[in-house]
Structures are given as C-alpha cells and as structure tokens.
C-alpha cells in the first residue's frame, strides 16, 4: 500500500459518519450478548461465592460477631488475642515443620516415581493407575485406614516390625513421630496427582536429547541430571510452589488422626483456625488467623504468578 493510499484510507475511517460506528458497536454487543450473559453469570457466581466471603472474612477479622446484633468493630483485638494464645506460635511452627517434611517427601517421591514410570517399557498404564489410586480414596477414609495401620498394638506396621524384632515406634502417640506419621499419610494420599504431572512433563522431553546423551556415554544419573531435570525445571518449580501453598493448609490428617496431639505437637494453623471458629465460636479471631494465613499464602502465590509470567 502506498503512503497516499494509506492516508486516503485513514481519511475514510476518520470521516465515516458516527451513525455507522454506533451501529458497529451495537452489532458487537448484540452479537456477543449471550457470551456477555454467561460472563456476567460467572462473575456473579464468583462475586457471591468467592470474593464476597473473602471480603467478609477480612472485615470479620476486625469485628466481634454474634450473628444476632450488628457486628462490633474491635480494631486489632482479635489479632492481639491470637498473639497471646500460646498455641499461635506452636501452630505456625508445626505447620512449617509439616510443610518442610511434606516437601522433602512429597516433592522427591512423586518425581522419583515419575522417572521410574517414564522408564518403564511395559505395564506403564497399569502402574500409573496404581500410583493414582490413593487420590481416588476419600481423604477421611484414607486417614482412618492409616490410623489402623499405625495402631501401636495390633496394627500391621508394628506387627511386621515385631516379627523382625525391630523397634516399634508409637507412630501417632509420640511427639517425636506424630508429625512425620502425618506427612507419610499426606504424601501417600497426594503423590498420585503430582506423579502424573511430572510424568506428563517428562514425556514432553524430546527423545533425541536422551539419544544424544546416550551416544555421549551418559548413564541414568547423568541423563537425569543433564537432561531430565533441566527440561522439567519449570514444572518442578511450579509444583514446588503449589505444594507449599497446599501443605500449609493441612487439616484433615491432624484433625482425624491426632486431634492436634500429643501435647500439641500436630496442632496446625488450620486446626487452630477450626477450633476458634467451630469449637469456641469466635469467628472474629478465626478470621484474623485466616487473614494471616492468607497473607502468607498470597506471598507464595505472588511468587508463582511472577515465575509463570517470566517463563511465558
């Protein structure tokens, strides 16, 4: 297109009558009305069921409520009450301990399992299903199953250890082993999903990279170190962050298996939050605690967003 003809075209556009522009806008709106309708519906659903509760939760953390009278603003009283609670720091410490243990196990085990599954030539689908099976079990059922496995008396774990004359841990009944026992349950229950994601990432790696590495004489460990890990680096990082966010919200395992014991060694932030809300009926303080947890998780989520943006 020559310069002259482009100017002429621009002139036509700028000088076209406003009526025609309005018509195009109207057509744009009417043509997409159904789409906007669906969009509005989704927005309304999000607003009512997601955003409003979040906003209400933030407000509640500065209020004292009885759900009969109007909420009373109490400023930072709920946060002050939380900080004075001897369990507050214990819960955070336990949560971080759980998170670290869960990452060590929950990160490494699924990755190793995925690598092994990826190497399989036969029965891959069968083993994939086997690994994923625990995810399909309802969490409460899984926890109750493990409660039986851990039973220090007639429980299967200690029965086997007894046969070999090995020491039989108290599993859930000891402050030193209770948290690790919970992490094992959590890792077992959740590793299926992570394994499948890792496996999907592994299968995107080009075969010729492995062939080249093999031609250079690389063994399994070297292929893992120089091909697999660098190629899946992004997925590993994202899953690490998502796992941090998920494991910091641990609730089911301590609630069902230990109730926070023994001696508060498995009281997590969410378990403490649950107690404030549903045992003590103190929704203000429960909301204050949830706001604090939200801020911590938001920091990790921010990191996640930043990483995904920089990668894209």
């Amino acid at each position, binding site marked *: 297109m020559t310069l002259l003809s482009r100017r002429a075209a621009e002139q036509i556009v700028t000088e076209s009558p406003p009526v025609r522009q309005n018509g195009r806008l109207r057509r744009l709106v009417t043509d997409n009305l159904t789409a906007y309708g669906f969009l509005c519906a989704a927005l309304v659903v999000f607003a009512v069921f997601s955003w409003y509760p979040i906003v209400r939760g933030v407000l509640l953390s500065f209020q004292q409520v009885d759900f*009969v009278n109007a909420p009373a603003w109490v400023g930072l009283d709920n946060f002050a009450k939380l900080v004075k609670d001897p369990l507050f720091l214990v819960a955070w410490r336990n949560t971080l301990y759980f998170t670290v243990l869960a990452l060590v196990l929950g990160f490494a085990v699924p990755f190793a399992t995925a690598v092994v599954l990826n190497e399989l030539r036969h029965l891959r689908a069968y083993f994939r299903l086997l690994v994923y099976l625990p995810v399909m079990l309802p969490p409460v059922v899984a926890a109750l199953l493990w409660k039986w496995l851990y039973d220090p008396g007639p429980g299967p774990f200690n029965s086997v250890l007894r046969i070999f004359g090995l020491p039989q841990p108290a599993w859930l009944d000891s402050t030193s082993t209770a948290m690790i026992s919970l992490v094992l349950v959590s890792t077992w229950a959740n590793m299926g999903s992570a394994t499948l994601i890792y496996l999907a990432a592994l299968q995107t790696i080009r075969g010729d990279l492995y062939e080249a590495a093999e031609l250079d004489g690389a063994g399994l460990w070297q292929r893992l170190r120089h091909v697999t890990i660098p190629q899946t680096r992004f997925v590993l990082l994202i899953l690490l962050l998502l796992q941090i966010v998920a494991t910091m919200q641990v609730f089911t395992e301590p609630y069902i298996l230990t109730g926070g014991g*023994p001696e508060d060694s498995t009281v997590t932030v969410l378990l403490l939050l649950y107690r404030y809300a549903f045992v003590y009926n103190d929704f203000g303080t429960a909301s204050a605690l949830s706001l604090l947890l939200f801020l911590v998780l938001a920091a990790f989520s921010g990191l996640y967003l930043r990483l995904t943006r920089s990668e894209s």
Partner: protein
Amino acid sequence: MTFSRTTRTLALIGVAAVCLAATACGSSPGDANGKVVISINGQPPKSQAFDRKIFDQDVAAFEKAHPTIDIQPHEGFMDPKTFNAKLASGKLEDVFYVYLTDPAQLIARHQAADITSYLPSVAHYQDIQPQLRDVFSDGKGKYYGVPTANYTMGLLYNRTLFTKAGLDPNKPPKTWDDVRAAAKKIAALGNNTVGYADYSKNNQGGWHFTAWMYAMGGDVAVRSGDTWKSDFNNDKGRAALTYLHQMRWDDNSMGSRQLLQIEDVQRMMGAGQLGMYLAAPDNVPVLVNQFKGNYADYGLAAMPGGQGTLVGGEGYMLNPKATPAKIKAGLTWLQWKFLNPDRIETNLRRYVADKQPVGLPVSPVTDIWTAGPVRDRQEQLKKANATVPVRNYQPYVDGVTALKQNVEPPNAQQVYAVLDNVMQAVLTNRDADINKLLADAQAKVDAIYAQAR
C-alpha cells in the same frame, strides 16, 4: 435471530430470579391459618427407626392436643459447625437443641431468647434439679433454656472380663486403687485386652480430666469475683494424673494405643477387649446397638472415690429472633414432650412393646428431676417395666446419690482443649512432668478466663 437469543437470555435470568425469590419465600415459615408455626430440631435420623417413630408420633399427638400449634420438625441436633451460619441466615430453628456445655456461651453472645417471664407457666419446671436449671441462667436471674435430659458419669465395666480375670462382677471397684488393681488383672488376660481406657483427643480428654477432678473431690474452675479461675493445679489434680500415669506406664493396663476418643473406646468395649472406662449410662445402649454388644455383659458402678461426679446432658433453647407467640408455643412443646410426668408410663409402654431397653438409668425417662414425687413415680414405673438386667446397674444407682454432682466448667470446650494436652502427655509420655503440665495448663486456662467476653 439475535433478538430471539436476547429474549432467551432475559427469560433465563427471569426464571432464575423467580426461582431465587421462591426459595427465599419458602424458607421462612410464619404464622399460617391462625396457627403458630414453630420449627424444632432434635428429630432423630431415619436410620434410628425406633427413635424416629417415637418422635414423629409425639409430634402428631402434640399437634392433635394443641390444634393452634403447627410443629415443623427438623432432623439433627446441635452442630457447632453450622449453628452460626443458620442463625445468621435466619435458618436456625425456633427451638434448638444444645449440650449443657453450650448455653453459657450462647447466653453471653445473645444467641438465645430470654424466657424468664414465660417460665412460671411451664408446669413442673420447678421440679427440675436446680443446678441443671442454672446451666441455662446468666447468673443474674434470667433464664434462656430448659434442660431436658442429663447424665451422671460413672464407671462402665465389662462383667464378662471381670469374671475371666477372677474379679467379682457384682462388686465393681469403689476406689481408684480398686480400679487400678482390677485394670491390672484384666490386662493380664493378654490378647490385646485393655484394663482401663480413657480419652485424650478432640476435647474429650479435657472432659474426662474434669470428671477425674470431680471424682477426687476437686474442681476445674472456681468463681473469682466476676470472673473464673482454674482450680486443678493442686494435689487433687496431681493425684488424678498420677493414677493415670501409673496405670499407663507402671501397670501397662491401658493398652499401647492412646489419643482415643469416645468411639474408639466404645468399639473396644463392644468388641469385648476393654475392662473399664468412665461413662454415662447412655453408653450402654450405644454399645449394644452400634457396637454389637450385649446388655448382660455390662455393669455400671458409681464414680470411684466416693467424692463427686460430673453431670452433663442436654436441653433446648429458643431462637433470639422468635416472636413471643413462638416462644410460648415452643415452651408448650418442651413441657409436653420432656417435662410431663403424666406421659412417663405411656413412654415406657411404647419402649417395652418395641423390645427397647427399659430400666437403664437413661432414656426414655431421664434423670432431670429433683427428689420428690415426680422422681419417685418415675423410678417406680421404671422398675415395674424393666427389660434389661437392672441389677447390673444397681451399684451405680445406689452410689450416685451420695456423690457431689458437678456441672461442667464455664468455657468448657476451650478449657477441655487445654486439658486434652495434659491427658495426652500423661498417656503418651513416660517421662511426663505432671507438675509442669498442670502449671502450663493453669496458665492457659486462666488466660482463657481472663479473655472471656
């Protein structure tokens, strides 16, 4: 085409709006046809066929006798997880069930209606034990609910295991030393048999530690001016924990698995693997119905020690948003259903006809009455209609009246959460420092009472 799509969208929105409006309208029963409509909960689930049938028959009989009142029964009992949401959304029943641990906090948060002015017209209200009535009081002369059932904790034991262990099942333990000795003999039977079990999880450990404190003649909290303070860091608290620690670690009579709660212990007892635990008489039907036990296997003794015992139970409160007419109708229902000595015999006969247990110191006629003609009449009728081996529970009945009856402490659930920890430490840690545990728990409980609002 575009127009018709728009019309369809608008129509959809319209239908949704109408549905929402209809749902909103249908959710709030009001007064209809000159009748006062009241919603009540406490209706047993369909899985408990007999209890459900009795409840539904009662509703029908009540409505027939009171044509101006329409009862809308709702299944379920007190659920702390949904209580506030129901109250906030206007879905809380007009008459709602509570455990005796709940009223104090509900009153403090203005979540129950003041019924003081209505009580003079509630027949037999004054025949209820005063300490139970006081659970529903704010301590300043106002009342917010009606107790309808209570339990008194005792020692539930397995008569079959007692016999196997060479113990006389007709002479259950009377002191804590007796309990310890019996637990040792039962545990010695082997095969994972546990002599004595106790709870230590989900606030139930704190609840039972409180029962231990009362049994030692002590308390958990005492009033101090306008507020409360803890009262368990003393010799009685130490004695209670020392017994537990000795049974667990010196005698090895409490089994190796701890962090137990009520269902775990009931399962052990139902399976014939447990000798004793502290329980209210209402555990016996649960052991039989849910855990395949046998009435003849169980015996009940009064709380060991001869000092005191824990009294708990249930009652009903009224919605703070209920109208005076609904409050009046609700109290009429509660009086008719629960506080009506004229219905005791009818109730017993229905249980006997359906081969349900009668004669236990529990439902269908509860123990809320103070000494007097109502209680006497109830006891006579129960004896005459008994369908279970009443002699198995006679040690409980004989001993319980001599004990000091203590209701649960204020802010019970928060206090129990702290005391759970003490029980857990003693039962899971051989080297538990009892003095330190009690001192730490004291600081925490005092902090709870200091912050109570």
